[in-house]
């Protein structure tokens, strides 16, 4: 019962948070001024009348509150409006570019999670050994290098020197690899996913190793060993689940900020995803697109935080009473 109550409270809080962000976002976008004036000003042949007509066409002539509620109502129906620059429904654009972003981000996080569990277990169960020091050093290095630098290194090695992997784009424009769209798409994913995996693995490993080292020193681990349970079960069943609790927060942030980090990855690999789209939208002041994507980022971050909180409840019984 307590658990359901807790989830209900968190849901309500999340909804308020999203609403708050929408107000701030709308206010900020409007603080820029009338985007039509900015976009069309000082172009030859553009008169006051034209600007007025276009402003009216996009419904930008009402009061700020009216326009806010219209926008919010449309958002609620998942209608994000039409892109000014591309003249396409923003919802469709977010969806098709979003798929491309998820295609590299989700594997990047999941692979990193699996790898870091393996590597940090290997290191933490052999604390202060050569393996442990190698893992720490590697993770420190990966964590300290900026993501884009790792990406450029990967391109240098695998695309430029070895010439085996494509350095940009999500698909080949002609001559599909093995004449298969799927194989070609996967082949293009390797480097961006690799960069994300390296970066995420490094940070997750640092967190998980130190957490695991801590847990392995606890009495209940000695007690589990003294009870005759095999080492495999002690480490994976008793230690790892406890060690995972602090890591969960970071994992939530990774999922939530997926779109926040996307611009860097997608710029390095010219990947047609939401990150690249966001930058274009901002540069061209395509404000329906900016607002739509910002709301999507907000919902994802809030949603990931919510899921993290729920995951905590599932994994750690001590939180259930809270």
């Amino acid at each position, binding site marked *: 019962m307590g658990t359901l109550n807790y989830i209900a409270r968190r849901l309500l809080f999340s909804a308020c948070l999203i609403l708050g962000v929408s107000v701030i976002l709308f206010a900020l976008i409007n603080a820029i001024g009338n985007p039509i004036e900015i976009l069309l000003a000082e172009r030859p042949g553009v008169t006051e009348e034209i600007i007025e007509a276009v402003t009216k066409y996009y419904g930008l002539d009402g009061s700020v509150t009216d326009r806010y509620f219209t926008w919010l109502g449309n958002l609620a129906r998942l209608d994000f409006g039409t892109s000014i620059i591309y003249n396409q429904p923003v919802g469709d654009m977010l969806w098709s570019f979003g798929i491309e972003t998820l295609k590299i981000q989700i594997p990047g996080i999941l692979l990193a999670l699996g790898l870091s569990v393996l590597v940090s277990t290997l290191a933490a169960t052999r*604390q*202060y050994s050569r393996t442990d020091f190698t893992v720490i050093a590697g993770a420190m290095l990966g964590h300290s290098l900026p993501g884009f630098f790792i990406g450029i290194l990967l391109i240098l090695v695998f695309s430029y020197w070895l010439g085996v992997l494509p350095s940009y784009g999500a698909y080949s424009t002609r001559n599909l690899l093995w004449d298969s769209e799927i194989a070609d798409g996967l082949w293009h994913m390797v480097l961006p996913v690799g960069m994300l995996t390296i970066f995420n693995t490094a940070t997750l490993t640092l967190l998980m190793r130190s957490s695991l080292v801590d847990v392995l*020193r*606890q*009495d*209940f681990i*000695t*007690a*589990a*060993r*003294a*009870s*005759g*349970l*095999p*080492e495999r*079960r002690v480490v994976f*069943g*008793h230690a790892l*689940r*406890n060690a995972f609790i602090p890591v969960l927060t970071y994992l939530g942030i990774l999922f939530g900020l997926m779109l926040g980090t996307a611009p860097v990855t997608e710029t390095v690999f010219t990947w047609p995803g939401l990150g690249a789209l966001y930058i274009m939208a901002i540069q061209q002041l395509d404000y329906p697109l900016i607002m739509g994507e910002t709301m999507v980022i907000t919902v994802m971050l809030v949603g990931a935080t919510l899921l993290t909180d729920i995951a905590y409840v599932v*994994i*750690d*019984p*001590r939180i259930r009473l809270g």
Partner: protein
Amino acid sequence: MAEPLLSVEDLKVHFFTRDGVVRAVDGVDFAVNRGETLGIVGESGSGKTVSSLALLRLVPPPARTVGGRVVFEGTDLLTLPTKALGTIRGRRIAMVFQNPATSLNPIYSIGSQLGEILLWHEPITRAEAEARVISLLTLVGITDPAARLRQYPHELSGGMKQRVGIARALLCNPSLVLADEPTTALDVTIQAQILDLLADLRRRLGMAMVLVTHDMGVVARMADRITVMYAGRVCETADAATIFRAPQHPYTRALLDSMPRIDHRYTGGARQVLPTIPGRPPNLLDPPAGCRFHPRCPDAIADCRRILPLETEIAPGHTVSCIRRGSQGIAA
């Protein structure tokens, strides 16, 4: 006397630290007979806890057991393959830990962590394991045991948690229980309850027990025989009555003298204050040559600095390691 249940011979556990090798346990011998309680007493750092962990090969790095034999029911546990050791741990020899708050896994319910151990060791069904856990929880005096199965450690009081810890140790009906300061982390009133419970269970189940403690009061109440440790070595072993009535080793005597006694007046006369042992325990990175207690010993002579005393039987069942009490020794 018959073959002892457990005999520890020349056990050595060293900590390999950056500053050098700390000889935390350096040649310890003791034995436990079937059904008896052996109290191991000593101050902090005397090596008593490390010794008890070493019996089941549980010493954490950077410590390592570097020598000796731990013979339990005829097999040396120190050379046993890991798999075979797993059938001794928790099944034939079980442990009760000092701090009940940290010795239970916080994220598993009582029922699942106790059940897991049973299911691992014995070919029984989940339902049978649950019934067994319930009966053990009842045995250790936990009320409403069926409801406790689904509770988590943080929902229980300290005393309750220690009862669960004891139930965990008894799951597979072991013949030896190692209890490391089982009451130190508890309130005084709960301490008494837990000690009574342990004594009662030991009698009823016919187990042997090794009780590690720094509290002379606890061993006086619980132990059949007592081993006194100092700086990683055994000073004296005898039955409890002898240790308390006729202690031979100067350290044992000093330890007993420094206990407050209800029949002494500390306010006047010769015994104005509670006596203490002068000096401090040695740094085990560089222990004193000869007898490790000699720098603090009132009876020390020149030879004590040179000769390492060995445990020598001076009366049946009474061993002392002090050259002034007739022990043999080896010159350094």
